């Protein structure tokens, strides 16, 4: 009898634990027909991409989530994203993708950047936070980096003036800066965030980053409940390494956003676990948050040791975007529980498991 009471007690504590983990109770009223399956374009990508997108497919099936994937094969060496893929994304409005490898120094322009420009996905979001159970050097990290995704240094306008002298144009427009500032403040407002920090280098690039800052300041005036401050990018990186808890939401132009997002992801646990996505006015593409390690090394591909956590958490963001919050909550709780238990971890988190083992653990933890 004592043994039975022990298991009863264990069940009780487990139930109270799960209700503590879930921070939201699902009370939203769906409209009739909301539950019909939605199509999502899936681009496996290169390197570890197919592994991790496969992981997402498996988990979605296990959850019986009302989405089905339309898979398209795109590789980084292609010169353009194929027209049928663009058609599909325009129709479905949501896409999930793995990394596309851009050849360094070659004549091919990055397909990731092309996709973002054509669909006008002007905001890139990376949510960097400490996962409970994952030891890192920094505590209390919860930063969202919102990065302008279409212009800035990535305009791709380069030319050789004379042999041996090359120029690259960095373009900043008021329209895009205003757009991204508005998105950042709206995000902060809707997600109960208290502070927005603009990252810049306006002491050197006075006109370009000055224009960016001006736009941010104007938008800040309309949100009096949110604190706004500015920080120079080199000081920002230093502060991120020393005192990351002072940052909340950061809004940055294109290049600095890349650096800041990867640094923040690194201090919070690595790019293998940070979710993120690219959002535009009509479309959204979800992928692993920070761009470093998107494609991974060949050794990881061969040994199947890629970390699917980032893409799983991004797909949870996608489920919320598609207005299926309870599926998103279930998925996130399962993933966080797997990480906090610490038994199934891939190499970048200090463990030895393969991708498949992590996926199985997540499926087992789904309620």
């Amino acid at each position, binding site marked *: 009898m004592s043994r039975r009471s022990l298991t009863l007690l264990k069940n009780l504590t487990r139930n109270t634990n799960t209700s503590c983990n879930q921070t939201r109770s699902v009370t939203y009223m769906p409209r009739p027909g909301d539950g019909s399956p939605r199509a999502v374009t899936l681009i496996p990508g290169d390197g570890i991409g197919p592994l991790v997108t496969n992981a997402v497919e498996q988990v979605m099936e296990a959850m019986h989530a009302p989405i089905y994937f339309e898979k398209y094969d795109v590789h980084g060496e292609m010169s353009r994203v194929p027209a049928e893929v663009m058609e599909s994304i325009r129709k479905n409005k949501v896409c999930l993708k793995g990394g596309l490898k851009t050849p360094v120094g070659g004549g091919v322009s990055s397909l990731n950047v092309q996709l973002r420009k054509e669909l006008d996905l002007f905001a890139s979001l990376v949510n960097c936070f400490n996962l409970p159970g994952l030891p890192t050097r920094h505590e209390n990290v919860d930063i969202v980096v919102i990065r302008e995704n279409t212009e800035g240094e990535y305009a791709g306008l*380069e030319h050789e003036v004379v042999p*041996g002298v090359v120029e690259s144009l960095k373009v900043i427009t008021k329209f895009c800066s205003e757009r991204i500032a508005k998105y950042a403040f709206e995000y902060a407002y809707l997600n109960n965030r208290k502070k927005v920090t603009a990252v810049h280098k306006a002491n050197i690039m006075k006109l370009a980053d000055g224009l960016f800052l001006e736009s941010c300041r104007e938008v800040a005036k309309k949100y009096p409940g949110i604190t706004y401050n500015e920080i120079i990018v080199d000081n920002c*990186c230093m502060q991120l390494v020393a005192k990351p808890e002072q940052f909340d939401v950061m809004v940055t132009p294109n290049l*600095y956003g890349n*650096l800041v997002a990867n640094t923040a992801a*690194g201090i919070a646990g*690595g790019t293998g676990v940070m979710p993120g996505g690219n959002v535009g006015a009509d479309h959204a593409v979800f992928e692993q948050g920070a761009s470093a390690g998107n494609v991974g090394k060949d050794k990881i591909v061969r040994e199947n040791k890629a970390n699917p956590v980032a893409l799983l958490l991004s797909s949870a963001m996608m489920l919320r975007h598609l207005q299926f919050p309870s599926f998103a909550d279930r998925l996130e709780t399962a993933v966080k529980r797997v990480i906090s238990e610490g038994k199934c971890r891939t190499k970048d988190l200090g463990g030895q498991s393969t991708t498949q083992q992590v996926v199985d653990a997540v499926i087992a933890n789904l309620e």
Partner: protein
Amino acid sequence: MAAHLAKRLIGSRSSQILGTVNSSSGSATSVARAFCSSSTTPITATLFPGDGIGPEIAESVKKVFTTAGVPINWEEHYVSTEIDPRTQSFLTWESLESVRRNKVGLKGPMATPIGKGHRSLNLTLRKELNLYANVRPCYSLPGYKTRYDDVNLITIRENTEGEYSGLEHQVVRGVVESLKIITRQASLRVAEYAFHYAKTHGRERVSAIHKANIMQKTDGLFLKCCREVAEKYPEITYEEVVIDNCCMMLVKNPALFDVLVMPNLYGDIISDLCAGLVGGLGLTPSCNIGEDGVALAEAVHGSAPDIAGKNLANPTALLLSGVMMLRHLKLNEQAEQIHKAIINTIAEGKYRTADLGGSSTTTDFTKAICDHL
């Protein structure tokens, strides 16, 4: 016969020194000085104490150097309060001439006064002296605990062009363009210096940091120049790392990197990031290298006007920059001595200034270092 032997010895010494001195800074005077330094002919060096806490920490440096027996005569120059029309800034022509003549200098923190019609002081120094490379070694100080314990890397940053050319204009209302310029000449120069530095300091790996998958022509040119120079130094491993990967690896595992060479903007950000890894700008030395072997070591922290004159400042950054200057002058034994003394004083923990968590004054800290010599 003794004279003949002596002449042969001197000949072999100078050829040894010629071999290690970089071709770009191999002017006759620097070789002669490098050789003469061992025979304690005093070297003249320019000292800019700077503003705020500058004068106090400059005093500190002078005291430590005299106690260590370093044969340097300091020529002090101060930032004037009026604009010198010959240089268009607050630095006088005499100061710049002095640095050009002596070829070495040590600079404290300078506060650029706010106003119109003059160039920033750092910009003046950089342009007039043609300082093309900024070298910043970052290593964890034993005894001062930060979250990272095994940092030991050098960042070498191209200092003249890149994104900081200052060429911007407004195309139409609401659209601004800024030019990023990369030239073959500047990239080759800084790559040469980086590999030469790695070789003379016994470093095994040089990593070039870039974003050539997006900025294909500009960073591509930088990488091409680095590759060319890498071929001349086959014993040094060369690799290329994309900057977002680099940022992530730096915060996860800084021990992976050795020498980093990069263009201007990335260098700015990465060198400050590395300074943050080891404890902040108050502990980071830095040295600017110019054409003709000019070396201007500087402390990169601010002038801290709020603690000026109160004997609370931490002279570590300026002292370590002075050590870098000594190594550039090939006064290696004294450099090692002073370096060890500083490390031991901080490691012991008895005398630490306020920013390191202790309560000593500047003078106590300096005295402790002198005692350790």
